[in-house]
């Protein structure tokens, strides 16, 4: 079949069909020429309207004192007072924790942190471009700030605020979930029977609604009516209440959060482990290597890129934790299990919309800096190595 030959060579462009010359196809041709815009416009518009615009609008909230009046909200510009309140003002205890008497140990560790961070910054001084240097300075500033709060609150024996509670959920939670999830994935990648059964079974918790998980865990962790009551009785811990002390409450949060999120690590790592070529492992087995050696030297190096990416995704989601502490303890005892999201919600309920938006913004900054640092210094280097 002969194709119509285009008379005008201008019509032949990438993404433009030479066949669309006939008069009836004007509309079709026009659509096709602008296909690039049509394809991407809906997504960009949606993100602009429902993500970018509210984020900017939220800044207006954070910079204002907001009052409810008869005809809607009234904004009054107050500058950065809402942010300053979190660091120096009335909410300092709530957000940062008690930072007052700093112990000698805290001072020493803070000095070590500062020297390490500055050394790292100095070493990259010669090679990096200015954009990269800017990024590194931001990471370094965040590291020094977080290090200071850590040393002044936790390492000096003081209580910690919602900032470090959130970081505890993220760091400790990710570590626990990653260790157990990878271990399970390794067990399931062995030649065992019923692998698909286990795969489905272990995957289910991830899919249960977080709210339902929160309530189920609250039922189960109940020390008088829950299933652990007989066990606690046997151990002689009838009077022990996990929700009475800050740290046991935080650990219970992490355990319950792990129930839901280990499956995520598990399923991704299992897929990665199964993707490791079988013959590499078998060759090592023929050579008589033990399974520990095979895992460390053959399998692990091949799954590291997946592992760090999965950790990154998990960390991003972990910063948003809210349902579990809200349902299980209501943020208590005191405010010791409140994550930053929950802190923001409670402040919002107290009708202080400005501070609520400010805390949400601080969470956004924290998440972006921590995740971007992890992505740039860990994930990218691992992916490049692979």
């Amino acid at each position, binding site marked *: 079949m002969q194709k119509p030959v285009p008379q005008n060579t201008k019509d032949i462009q990438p993404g433009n*069909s030479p066949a669309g010359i006939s008069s009836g196809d004007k509309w079709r041709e026009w659509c096709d020429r602008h296909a690039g815009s049509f394809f991407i416009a*809906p997504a960009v518009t949606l993100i602009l309207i*429902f993500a970018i615009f509210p984020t900017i609008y939220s800044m207006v909230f954070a910079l204002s004192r907001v009052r409810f009046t008869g005809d809607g909200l009234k904004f009054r510009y107050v500058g950065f007072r809402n942010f300053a309140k979190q660091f120096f003002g009335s909410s300092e205890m709530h957000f940062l924790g008690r930072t007052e008497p700093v112990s000698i140990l805290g001072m020493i560790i803070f000095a070590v942190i500062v020297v390490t961070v500055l050394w790292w910054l100095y070493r990259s001084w010669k090679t990096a471009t200015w954009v990269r240097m800017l990024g590194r300075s931001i990471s370094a500033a965040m590291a020094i700030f977080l290090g200071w709060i850590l040393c002044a609150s936790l390492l000096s024996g003081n209580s910690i605020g919602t900032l470090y509670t959130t970081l505890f959920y993220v760091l400790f939670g990710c570590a626990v979930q990653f260790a157990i999830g990878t271990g399970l994935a390794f067990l399931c990648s062995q030649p065992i029977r019923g692998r698909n059964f286990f795969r489905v079974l272990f995957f*289910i*918790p991830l*899919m249960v609604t977080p709210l339902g998980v929160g309530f189920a865990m609250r039922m189960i962790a109940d020390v008088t009516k829950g299933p652990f009551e007989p066990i606690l009785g046997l151990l002689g811990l009838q009077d022990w209440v996990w929700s009475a002390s800050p740290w046991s409450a935080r650990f219970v949060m992490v355990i319950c959060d792990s129930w839901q999120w280990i499956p995520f690590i598990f399923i991704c790592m299992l*897929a990665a482990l199964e993707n490791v070529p079988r013959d590499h492992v078998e060759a090592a087995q023929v050579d008589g290597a*033990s399974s520990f050696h095979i895992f460390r030297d053959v399998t692990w190096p091949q799954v590291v*890129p997946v592992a760090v990416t999965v950790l990154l995704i998990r960390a991003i989601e972990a910063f948003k934790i809210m349902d579990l502490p809200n349902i299980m303890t209501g943020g208590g005892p005191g405010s010791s299990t409140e994550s930053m999201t929950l802190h923001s919600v409670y402040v919002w309920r107290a009708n202080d919309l400005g501070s609520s938006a400010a805390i949400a913004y601080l969470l956004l900054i924290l998440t972006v800096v921590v995740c971007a640092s992890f992505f740039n210094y860990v994930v990218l280097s691992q992916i490049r190595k692979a």
Partner: protein
Amino acid sequence: MKDVIVKFDPQNRSLMERLFEPPAIGKMAPFTKVVVYSFLAIWSFFVLFPIYWVIITSFKDAAAVNQGPNFIPFIDFQPTLDAWRINFTADPYCDIASIARQIYLLAHNSVIFVLSPFVSLQPMEPQICKIYLAFTNSVVISIISTIFCVAVGSMAAYALARIQYKPKFGNIMIFVLLILAVTLMTTYSGIPWWMSSAVALALFFFLARSIGRHFKMSLGNGDILFWMISQRILPPIVVVVPLYVMFQAVGLLDTHLALILLYAVANLPIVVWLMHDFFANLPIELEESAQLDGATRFGIFWEIVMPLTRPGLAATTLLILVLNWNEYLFAVFLATVKVQTMPIMVAAKNTGEKGVLWWEMCAVTVVMIIPVIIMSILLTRFISKGVLLGAVKG
């Protein structure tokens, strides 16, 4: 691969080595087998126990819950259907006639739900058979939102994988500044939002046409992709209050449309990220030959590319469906009466004065979990084929 140095002496093996020695390649030693299976069994118990506890609690009455732990139905406690009856039939309005009317209203409203800001819905007396209303709302919202999200997201992902974009950096800055100006104008000086945004949009096109052509620095496809995916970092708490005000201003509060749009946007980064990987891995020759045959971009996308990525598409759809089904934060802020979803029904059982009505709540949770378990079984089949692995590898 590093060299693995292991001393292997078949004659003098320790007891540990004998126990853990595999009989053949690709098999496990009996002792290893015991260890592995016992770990798996412990974990299965850990996974299943909370679900089991929720299910049996839904068959308890108040007394059986409050007495203390009762583990096994018919032995420790007498199971009843009270909780299910209260939720699903015992409501005074839940006789057959009103359920039928309810279903009719739901069908009617689901058809015109998109028009809900413009066409008034039939009043749905929210105190009647709340659970059916919520269930239908959840189904309608999550399915439509998923389809919408996957369609928009995969279009964008395909475009980013195949078409070169060069947005000017300066234009983007102009746009952001204009958004900022609109926001400040609307909040502090009380200009109506539609007026300021129309002016800003016109101004943007004017500036982009006039000044825009002089900008040099432009971004590439990788930057756009990164920008879209990075939206997932945004904590929902940052945007939910402004969104509330925004939807109130345009009269979309408490409508299906608001939740559908929001859920779609919240999950758009996942769709773009997963689908981009599938599209980028397709052989480009097929599309090139189709283009030579005179197919349009849309034709290629719809008839060649989409069928080729069917497994990935299905897996992504299932994942988004589950996420939408479970969404709570947006729903609790933006859906007050008419479009309550299932998670809100679960939370509603936590009444202030009577404490948590555990048995009723568990019944609702079981109803929520069942479809999710079916979906996750389907989803694991895709994942076990390595369908979603490529994207994780970065």
